């Protein structure tokens, strides 16, 4: 059976929180439940079985799931990695998969669950679109959009925010990345950009589409690599084989972005945990909706833990590939983008430093891979980069700030970072918290290791 959202929900059924009472997602009610859980330190995936549409009427046949990506353990399950390996081995597994793309398989509509219901006269107001945070400009679909390069035919996928405006119109915000470059190519030809929004799929699908691939790469192939199987595609309703859409999605919304039309959109709670401002963004005229008979609508809890974690593996895996697999740091041991840095702004590297300056060079390479990173802390290989207490202990005991800390002023940041000045300018920093190579240094204090290893906590009744 091909991987999809339903096969994954089966895999995590023991942790799925199912809510049967009626919920109005467009009036914050679904997001409020997840926030309430988050306030208690709980992060279960939540399935709402009784949800309303944009008019407050029951969205017949629809369910809604939130917070699939809100826990690293679930990301491990998405890639079939065991819980004890959910830190660096999981990163290495992702890094391996993203380098081995698998071409997609095109199937007929009769074999595509997403084609069970096709609406050529679509009405977005029938969907259970979620309003997440209080100052959001409206309800948003915050899953993945696909566009296709008109020159080389490569598919580009990205998480974008799509604001519900009316029954056939959405506002779409795009950062200056590959998808916007493709939209600009259509704009230069004075043509609308064919676009589809993919709502509800296996988490490996959404992890795969976030890889930092070259502009020319076909991201459906990379997604297949990360999923470990060919992604099944089917011709879209509006453009046929000219824009293929995932056959095993729950809902796919098709539409066109007209060239040059911008309308007021936002604010929207974004990955830093702050709102991105209201602005003028492209619009999307919806042309068709493909969906399953009883679809499970999906959303990311934007500006919260799920938003942070959903991208962590592609970023950690990408840096690992960039620095160690393809790069010049064979002694790099771990890469961690901690939740406390929104899994984007701060990076911890653990490595065996072999020469003066190598730690700083590795830090600069990590920043080069990802412009969102503002602070890289490099620690020795005895420090677990996934243990923030150990990382900060190393900073406290191994870094001399006058010697081991560098500021990089006027560097490129990300438009949604609240510290950015002007359009994109930020100050970045590197802390080399590794022991110096050029002078004698102290030794971390431990009891004799051989004695510690002999201790049997079960025998001492200290561990069950």
């Amino acid at each position, binding site marked *: 059976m091909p991987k999809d959202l339903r096969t994954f929900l089966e895999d995590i059924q023991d942790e799925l929180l199912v809510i049967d009472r009626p919920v109005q997602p467009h009036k914050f009610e679904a997001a409020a439940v997840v926030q309430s859980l988050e306030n208690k330190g709980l992060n279960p995936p939540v399935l709402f079985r009784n949800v309303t549409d944009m008019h407050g009427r029951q969205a017949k046949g629809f369910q809604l799931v939130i917070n699939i990506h809100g826990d690293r353990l679930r990301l491990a399950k998405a890639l079939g990695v065991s819980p004890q390996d959910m830190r660096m081995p999981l990163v290495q597994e992702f890094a391996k998969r993203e380098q081995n793309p698998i071409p997609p398989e095109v199937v007929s509509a009769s074999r595509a669950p997403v084609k069970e219901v096709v609406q050529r006269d679509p009405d977005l107001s029938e969907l259970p679109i979620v309003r997440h945070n209080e100052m959001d400009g409206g309800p948003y679909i915050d899953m993945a959009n696909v566009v296709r390069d008109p020159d080389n035919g490569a598919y580009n996928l990205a998480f974008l925010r799509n604001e519900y405006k009316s029954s056939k119109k959405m506002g779409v915000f795009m950062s200056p990345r590959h998808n916007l470059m493709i939209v600009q190519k259509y704009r230069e030809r004075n043509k609308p950009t064919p676009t589809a929004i993919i709502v509800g799929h296996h988490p490996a699908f959404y992890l795969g589409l976030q890889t930092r691939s070259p502009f020319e790469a076909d991201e459906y192939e990379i997604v297949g690599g990360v999923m470990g199987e060919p992604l099944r595609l089917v011709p879209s309703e509006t453009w046929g084989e000219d824009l293929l859409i995932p056959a095993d999605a729950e809902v796919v919304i098709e539409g066109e972005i007209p060239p040059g039309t911008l309308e*007021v959109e936002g604010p929207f709670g974004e990955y830093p945990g702050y709102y991105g401002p*209201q*602005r*003028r963004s492209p619009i999307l005229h919806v042309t068709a909706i493909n969906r399953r008979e009883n679809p499970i609508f999906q959303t990311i809890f934007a500006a919260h833990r799920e938003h942070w974690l959903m991208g962590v593996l592609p970023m950690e895996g990408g840096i690992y590939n960039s620095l160690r697999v393809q790069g010049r740091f064979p002694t790099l041991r771990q890469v961690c983008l901690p939740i406390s840095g929104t899994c984007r702004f701060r990076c911890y590297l653990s490595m065996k430093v072999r020469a003066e300056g190598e730690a700083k060079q590795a830090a600069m390479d990590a920043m080069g891979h990802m412009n969102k990173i503002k602070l890289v802390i490099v620690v020795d290989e005895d420090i677990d980069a996934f243990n923030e207490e150990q990382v900060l202990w190393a900073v406290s005991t191994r870094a001399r700030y006058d010697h081991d800390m560098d500021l990089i002023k006027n560097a490129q940041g990300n438009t949604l970072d609240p510290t950015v000045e002007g*359009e994109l300018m930020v100050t970045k920093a590197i802390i080399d918290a590794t022991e110096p190579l050029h002078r004698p240094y102290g030794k971390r204090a431990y009891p004799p290791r051989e004695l510690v290893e002999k201790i049997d906590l079960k025998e001492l009744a200290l561990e069950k």
Partner: protein
Amino acid sequence: MVKIFWVTCPECKNKFYCHYKDLRHSGEKLHCPYCDNWFTEEEALNIYD
């Protein structure tokens, strides 16, 4: 963050913020996310930039 300005809705008096380059002095009506009111900068109760 890119340069923003805070604006106060004349209808519900709640505050929200907008992208300066896109919307300040643009003549575009602003949309209050709290009460769905559309209004011009001139109609805003307050603008802080």
